[in-house]
């Protein structure tokens, strides 16, 4: 049996897919430990998980739009978080003595410490942004990212001639998507597109299941982390759009109450919805979301068509993939009118081709094997590295 160290950022959307992989590894008898911000990880992982804390520090909240959001992500989170966690991660490796590390692409310090100790490591892509080269048309932006990463490499004291992009393990890159979304572009053999990792989460006893009315079709609205006027404005348009869709549609909205206008009596609104449980119970007919990889993958895996209103990062690219696959429509987050959004929602609800495409794409994504394939590849990674000299193991 092997020991796997999982390096993740303190962000729910990044942790959830890795939970599924961790469970699969543990079910096979491997030892699994997590590193990161324990105050965030513990509520997500439960009391039984082994968490080697890297300390707590406030980082810039992820927000904004477009290039400003990209700058904020890298300069406000990825780079300072990597600096902050470098030493605690090194200590975690020395304490846990893993056979391999699984490193989220947004926590490059994990790759740096793995390289320092000569340990095999796999990357896990949290979205489409770092899977290919979506910003290939902006070479100076790509160079800016590379500059930040080489700076971390130098700061870690690693030999410059050994530089490896810490987002891309040369041995294994796991991604929760599949060719049904990414298209015909070929990836290297060490890329494993495993499809969505659907980690079951505890049933939510507080969700008002009794308010889901028979005979209505339901649209889940889940826009991730939205705040302030931008969030309130979008939700106001979304609620109006759902009213325009007609009384046969029941909205299920996952958002803070402060972002919501007065709701029609039949709408269900909660701050956090049991998304997977709603999908698995067949309680939904379509999803309105931001185009985040997790939500899109989960919806498609359950055959649900989407309307995506992308806000930032990889979301415009994922939304474009959904449209290209025929499984949904894209609307401009900042500009779509209630009438335009209602038309898009009615289209995906009423036109069978979107549902059929969602079912087809979802089946193809599931065929990637999810956590099972990911665990297979991680075991092979350890097996391939078993003969290498590892001073820690």
């Amino acid at each position, binding site marked *: 049996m092997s020991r796997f160290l999982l390096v993740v950022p303190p962000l729910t959307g990044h942790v959830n897919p890795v939970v599924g992989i961790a469970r699969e590894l543990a079910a096979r008898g491997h030892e699994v430990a997590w590193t990161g911000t324990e105050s965030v990880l513990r509520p997500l992982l439960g009391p039984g998980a082994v968490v080697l804390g890297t300390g707590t520090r406030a980082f810039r909240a992820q927000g904004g*739009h*477009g290039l400003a959001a990209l700058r904020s992500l890298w300069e406000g989170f990825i780079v300072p978080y990597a600096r902050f966690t470098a030493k605690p991660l090194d200590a975690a490796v020395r304490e846990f003595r893993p056979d391999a590390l699984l490193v989220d692409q947004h926590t490059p310090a994990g790759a740096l410490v793995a390289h320092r100790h000569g340990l095999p490591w796999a990357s896990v892509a949290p979205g489409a942004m770092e899977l290919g080269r979506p910003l290939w048309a*902006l070479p100076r*932006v790509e160079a800016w990212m590379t500059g930040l990463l080489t700076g971390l490499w130098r700061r870690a004291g690693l030999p410059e001639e050994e530089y490896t992009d810490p987002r891309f393990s040369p041995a294994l890159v796991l991604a929760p998507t599949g060719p049904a979304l990414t298209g015909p572009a070929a990836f290297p053999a060490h890329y494993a597109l495993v499809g969505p990792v659907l980690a079951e989460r505890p049933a939510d006893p507080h969700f008002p299941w009794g308010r889901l009315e028979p005979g209505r079709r339901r649209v889940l609205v889940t826009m991730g982390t939205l705040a302030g006027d931008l969030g309130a404005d979008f939700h106001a348009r979304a609620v109006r759009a759902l009213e325009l869709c007609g009384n046969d549609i029941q909205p299920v909205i996952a958002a803070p109450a402060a972002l919501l206008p007065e709701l029609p009596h039949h709408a269900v609104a909660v701050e956090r919805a049991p998304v997977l449980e709603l999908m698995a119970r067949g309680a939904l007919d379509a999803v309105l979301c931001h185009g985040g990889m997790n939500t899109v993958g989960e919806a498609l895996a359950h055959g649900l068509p989407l309307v995506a209103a*992308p806000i930032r990062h990889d979301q*415009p690219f994922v939304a474009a993939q959904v449209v290209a696959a025929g499984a949904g429509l*894209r609307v401009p987050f900042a500009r779509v*009118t209630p009438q335009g959004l209602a038309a898009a929602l009615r289209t995906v609800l009423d036109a069978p081709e979107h549902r059929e495409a969602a079912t087809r794409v979802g089946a193809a994504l599931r065929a990637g094997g999810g956590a099972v394939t990911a665990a297979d590849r991680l075991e092979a990674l350890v097996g391939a590295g078993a003969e290498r000299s590892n001073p820690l193991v």
Partner: protein
Amino acid sequence: MTVSEPRDSAAPVRPELTALLVQAAGAPPEWAALVTPDARLDADLMLDEYELTALDALLCGHFGAPAGLAALRAGLDLAELEALTVADVQRLLPAEEPAR
């Protein structure tokens, strides 16, 4: 050209450029009021990479390949991209519309 050149942001936005921006943005007609010379494509008009690609295709189709926005953006760094305005795009356009 680069965005570091002096700007003539006083020139009004040509109606055909405004129309193409509205089209690329998938915006309602009234959104055109936001399309001013000083409006930044990123922070003010909130155009994402997908929409900017669509705008580039529309510009090339309407004005010809030399109007390519993609070529301009490919030479800019992050700060310059953040600062890119409608006036910068307008300076890419030929003075007169091609005869049709």
